């Protein structure tokens, strides 16, 4: 007999279950990742101390977390917003890359005073990211073609374009490395005094606040939530699914594009072949872990930023492959969806209720709001 559990839907989820689920998911993921650490003869306790405790040691290490968090917050929002409308922006990485490419090009080729140049770079990157999401958005809105596949294919294409550019037309410097010239000083995002964190962080927090307000206070936010939780009903209520899909995915692309240029101009100072260690892919677990509100998404982004900083530390100090970050990320979400089952269903004796309204539909991501 294969697994066939008799379950009943909970009428309401106890609040300790609702709040404890993300924490349980993180704890379970870290517990299972111990296997991967032991397999390569690394002491898991020492590794976790290095990853999650040491970054809090000094202001400088702590500001590293904020530097990492900056692109993650922006690109996390870029996945979060379409997710609220029921769309999967799995290819945020591609939008991030195009934003970085266009922003870098502006920084290197346009000479303007800093107060004008940086906004122009941000705008250029946002437009580029938005355009990169536009075709998948149109295909989804018009013909229902899965945005999961199309945004990903666009990401693969963007990655190839990036490689072509840094090895060809945009290659700079000497030595033939696949990278552009350093950005001119005026194009670098000013640092927040006393830290390594930069203006990009303020831009990110601005958009967190903006999105929070839009989702809670505006008609548009209401529409997005409505379409996301029940597209058919929204259509019947006279809302245009087409517009919501197009707007959220393009806006998501723009946010991802901002993440790209903020990482270049705030942290790396030049575009090179491997500047983005998969921030766009990490954005998906971030948005999922924080799916119940912008503020929780912010917390999720900070947690994954800590994971990146900690992951780098164990890579350097203990020779742990950086892919440990991917393993933990994936496990967190796999345990999250496991735990959500227990949020929605109780395994006690099944009660004859006769309705089946709790069946989870494939793409309903915000049904539990």
């Amino acid at each position, binding site marked *: 007999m294969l697994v066939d559990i008799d379950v009943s839907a909970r009428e309401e989820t106890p609040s300790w279950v609702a709040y404890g689920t993300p924490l349980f998911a993180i704890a379970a993921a870290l517990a299972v990742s111990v296997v991967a650490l032991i397999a390569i003869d690394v002491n898991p306790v020492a590794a976790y101390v290095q990853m999650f405790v040491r970054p809090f040691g000094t202001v400088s290490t702590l500001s590293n977390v904020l530097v990492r968090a900056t692109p993650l917050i922006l690109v996390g929002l870029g996945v979060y917003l379409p997710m609220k409308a029921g769309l999967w922006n799995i290819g945020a990485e591609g939008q991030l890359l195009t934003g970085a490419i266009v922003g870098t090009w502006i920084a290197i080729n346009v000479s303007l005073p800093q107060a004008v140049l940086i906004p122009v770079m941000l705008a250029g990157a946002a437009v580029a990211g938005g355009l990169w999401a536009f075709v998948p958005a149109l295909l989804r809105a018009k013909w229902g073609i899965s945005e999961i596949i199309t945004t990903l*294919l666009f990401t693969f294409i963007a990655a190839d374009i990036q490689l072509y550019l840094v090895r060809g037309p945009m290659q700079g410097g000497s030595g033939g490395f696949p990278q552009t010239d350093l950005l001119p000083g005026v194009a670098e995002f000013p640092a927040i005094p006393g830290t390594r964190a930069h203006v990009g962080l303020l831009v990110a927090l601005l958009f967190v606040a903006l999105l929070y307000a839009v989702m809670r206070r505006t008609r548009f936010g209401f529409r997005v939530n409505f379409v996301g939780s029940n597209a058919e009903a929204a259509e019947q209520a006279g809302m245009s699914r087409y517009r919501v899909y197009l707007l959220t995915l393009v806006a998501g692309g723009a946010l991802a594009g901002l993440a790209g240029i903020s990482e270049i101009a705030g942290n790396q100072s030049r575009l090179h072949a491997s500047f983005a260690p998969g921030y766009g892919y990490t954005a998906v677990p971030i948005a999922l872990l924080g799916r119940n509100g912008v503020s929780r998404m912010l917390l999720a982004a900070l947690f994954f930023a800590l994971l990146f900083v900690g992951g780098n530390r164990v890579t350097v100090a203990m020779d742990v492959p950086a892919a440990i970050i*991917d393993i933990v990320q994936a496990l967190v979400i*796999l345990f999250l969806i496991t735990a959500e089952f227990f949020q929605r269903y109780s395994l006690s004796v099944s009660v004859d*209720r006769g309705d089946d309204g709790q*069946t989870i539909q494939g793409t309903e*991501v915000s049904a539990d709001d």
Partner: protein
Amino acid sequence: MTDTSFLLGLADAMVSASTVLVLAGLGELISERAGVLNLGVEGMILVGALSGVIATVVTGSYWIGFAVGSVCGLLMSAVHAFLCISLKADQAISGIMLTLLGTGITTYFGQQWASAQFAGFPDRTLPVIGGLLVEIPIVGPTVFEGPATDFVALGLVVVVWWLLTRTNLGLEIISVGEDPETADTMGIDVFKMRYLAVLIGGLLAGAAGAHLSLAFTGIWTNNIAAGQGWIAVALVIFARWRPGRLLVGAYLFGLFNSLRLRSQGLDLTLAPESPLAALLNPVVEFLLNPAIMSMYPYIVTLVVLVATVVWSRDDDSAQPAALVQAYSREAD
């Protein structure tokens, strides 16, 4: 390099490059026919490819490597099946995270196997009738001569077609993907059928990965699948969930993939004295740039996907009606 040998090499590479997509695509097709979308194929291909290499190096037998790779794909799909069928989790999330997990695990453990030397599948003629058929110009040596996994994949196209259209088991799989409630009242075990289909899908995705590392590249490299798992998912839509069309689609993508690998031997630039040389040569060079060429398979996938969906928009009958819907029995 003469033109015929270029064509022959291209056709040969096309068949071999398409085998990954045929195997992974057939697995995805069966899984989706039962109503379960599996976006973890990419991760399962990667896990199958690495575990296949490890098993081959350890045991010295590429057949054992192929079997181990397939089984590891199956084990990963068991996680997907448990989450999506038993726990009714979102199929898209589970699949995407399994791909992320597969990428992470294989990158994590793959480093030390990247330079591993092993004897992979040798090219050989199809047994029994192959010796005769191989004499056919171009088609003969491309189709009937190659690694054994190429023949396995071609055979499976027929087997899956036969399974889905001519057997009770196939009809039961299709019925749980179209209308699980009715299938349940007919006495078909919906959960069991879905588990079976997802596990077969994982087995084939793992096999695709093992073929990729053991027969196609002959070496393990990080992210060896390079998006082919995602192309396989798109191919199933292009194929309208039919095995025969899947084969056609896989050949098309195999062609573009092999074009990139074989293009070094090709010189399409015009002679300098030609009047159009100044105008066209930069374009040709741009188009033959390796970085540009490596995006062709993705562009072709996009174009073909859009064309398929737009042209067959009025005919929704091909897609399994209960795809991505979890099934819960009414409380009894």
